[in-house]
């Protein structure tokens, strides 16, 4: 099947996923390398691409040539060479800075806690990258995420949790709509194996990244110092840490440096009257104040989320789902209803703790991802506080 240009045409959605032209996003890590290898082994025509996402010049050049993480790019290239697929580096640094890094900084500045990985999947991997891939005649983008795409009889697609719940990454893919899913391939999704077994598979395939340590940090904050990164971009502004009564209990160097539910790093001189640990309850960037209090005060019974994205048809009315409120978070029973705005109103069967505005709420029906939205405000059990 070829199109007018003599290139392979759009795939029949009901056809078996074989022999497609696949663009494999390769970070230089073990997961994406094994994913690309599996896609190639399954009979797809795979091309590897490493995304250069930051423009830090790391070597002496007369031109303005910059490159992010030359080592990762080299590792990805090495893996592609072993798999035997073409490999390119695409410079998406400008898009990434605008859509992910600037957004990350702005969200913290506004007192929220963003998830840049989710944002990157939504705006970069399955938007900028996917669009370019489709334009160049590829049928799908393949990544090393642990999630499962299920093809239904009617040709539609559903996103499900990975077979191995412990490694499931469907949360950070919850922003994908059905059109994006139709061109997504996650070869690791049905892996019922430990990370050690993925490493063993990489070893067996001759991939040198088999022994590379996992990356957990935010990729554009190489040293893992998020506070330092934010301070560099937002400066420092000393402000008060107050308790629930409004009494000053300490000072901080910038309200943006805190996350709802945070306990460590508050540096409050004297203990609370009840002797119990205190947690960040509220962040108010407007008056640069951080409110702390006991753990019970973190209990949230309801929330409002904005920018809902549905994987398939949007639900017409209220429904009962399980929800995940942060990466690696557990599941909780909720009732959710889309309302005008567009917004999503969510109430919890049981109070939950540590819900931070800016994070995503992803709704599931069993293992199926129904949709996601960005948490805007929460309703506390103790006092109906509205977080900005």
């Amino acid at each position: 099947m070829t199109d007018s240009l003599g290139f392979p045409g759009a795939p029949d959605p009901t056809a078996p996923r074989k022999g497609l032209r696949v663009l494999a996003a390769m970070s230089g890590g073990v997961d994406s390398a094994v994913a690309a290898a599996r896609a190639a082994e399954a009979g797809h025509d795979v091309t590897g691409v490493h995304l250069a996402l930051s423009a830090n010049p790391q070597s002496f050049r007369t031109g303005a040539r910059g490159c992010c993480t030359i080592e990762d790019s080299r590792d990805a290239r090495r893996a592609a060479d072993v798999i035997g697929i073409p490999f390119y580096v695409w410079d998406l640094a400008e898009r990434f800075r605008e859509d992910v890094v600037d957004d990350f900084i702005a969200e913290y500045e506004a007192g929220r806690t963003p998830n840049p990985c989710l944002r990157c999947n939504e705006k970069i991997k399955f938007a900028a990258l996917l669009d370019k891939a489709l334009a160049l005649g590829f049928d799908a983008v393949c990544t090393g995420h642990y999630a499962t795409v299920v093809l239904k009889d009617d040709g539609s697609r559903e996103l499900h949790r990975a077979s191995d719940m412990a490694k499931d990454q469907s949360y950070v893919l919850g922003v994908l709509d059905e059109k994006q899913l139709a061109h997504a391939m996650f070869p690791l999704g049905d892996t019922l194996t430990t990370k050690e077994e993925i490493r063993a598979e990489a070893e067996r395939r001759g991939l040198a990244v088999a022994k590379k340590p996992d990356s957990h940090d935010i990729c554009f904050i190489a040293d893992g110092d998020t506070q330092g990164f934010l301070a560099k971009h937002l400066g420092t502004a000393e402000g008060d840490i107050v308790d629930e009564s409004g009494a000053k209990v300490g000072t901080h160097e910038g309200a943006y440096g805190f996350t709802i539910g945070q306990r460590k790093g508050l540096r409050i001189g004297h203990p609370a009257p009840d002797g119990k640990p205190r947690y960040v309850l509220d962040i108010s960037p407007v008056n640069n104040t951080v409110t702390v209090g006991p753990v019970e005060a973190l209990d949230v019974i309801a929330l409002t989320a904005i920018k809902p994205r549905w994987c398939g048809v949007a639900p017409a009315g209220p429904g009962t789902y399980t929800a995940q409120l942060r990466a690696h978070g557990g599941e909780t029973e909720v009732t959710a209803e889309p309302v005008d705005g567009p917004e999503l109103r969510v109430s919890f069967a049981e109070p939950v703790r540590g819900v931070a505005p800016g994070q995503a709420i992803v709704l599931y029906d069993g293992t199926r991802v129904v949709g996601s939205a960005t948490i805007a405000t929460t309703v506390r059990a103790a006092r109906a506080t509205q977080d900005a």
Partner: protein
Amino acid sequence: MAYLDHAATTPMLPEAVQAMTAQLALTGNASSLHAAGRRARRTVEESRESLAAALGARPSEVVFTSGGTEADNLAVKGLFWARRDADPARTRVLASPVEHHAVLDAVHWLGEHEGATVEYLPVDAYGRVHADALREAIARNPDDVALVTVMWANNEIGTIMPVHELAGVAAEFGIPVHADAVQAFGQLELDFAASGLAAMTVSGHKVGGPYGIGALLLGRQYTPVPVQHGGGQERHVRSGTLDVPAVAAFAVAGTLAAERREAHAREVGALRDELVEAVLAAVPDAVLGGDPDPAGRLPANAHFSFPGCEGDSLLLLLDARGIECSTGSACTAGVAQPSHVVLATGTDPDLARGTLRFSFGHTSSRADVRAVADAIGPVVERARSAGLS
């Protein structure tokens, strides 16, 4: 598979492979005094003589290096240091802005670390330096110029520089000129003695010899300060045990390249002309880079800019169809940037993102041209739909 990237590297000539493998089986350090050393030294010196003959130089003017990059560094840094040592006022380096990175980054480094004032000579729309521009630059203060470095022919857009004229101008002021002739060797007549150059770079793997070997042709009166210190081999300017098999194979390839030059240039020139015609027919708004006059460009080079296309996209789509070429500027780190050469010719930066270089060599055929002719139209159309990211 259509291999059209001979300017990056070209297959070794069978004669060179034979010379190299024969030498690999033998032992001997060319600096040793015993019989094995004498055998190796004889091979090296015979190789030096044949390369000198192929390049219009004296044998003593051939300094073997590990390749073009090292020869460029030795010439640019070494001559700068030597000239400045002789007269501290000489700190100005005149370079073309279209040099290969081996020269460009070396002069840039001199500016950053050695107090050099680097001045880039103006080029025309074909990337050519003119003699009057060089004269003007030198005449502003002839006493502070350490050296001039202008390549013999450009590796990306193929433009041939008026090397003899440039060397003549510099000679009036007693200023040494270095030329990177890596791409010119085997395509243009190179006569080092007649050129008036102080130093000239050539490389093995661009003329059918092995990788990892090159030479700096160095006038006898010049003693650059070494970049690499050690045992004092190669006139004390380039220390290190010589790679005898590579030297022998380079000499064989270089000799054949010089012998076959005219016929080779005619053949690849005809293929190149066909390719240019086919590409412009299939993509009427493609822009031919460099000098449109065949006499003004390397016969093996064709360079195009395709409006609205990303060079990387073109490369990917052609690669998928078995056509191997280049955007013109290889970046080992991987991120493609508009070429400094194309930008220096005054090309619009967006247009400069969509460049392709096709380069021919001794294994090229009309089948290669036909493959490009068939593919380029749809490939450009497809790349255009992906746009500039």
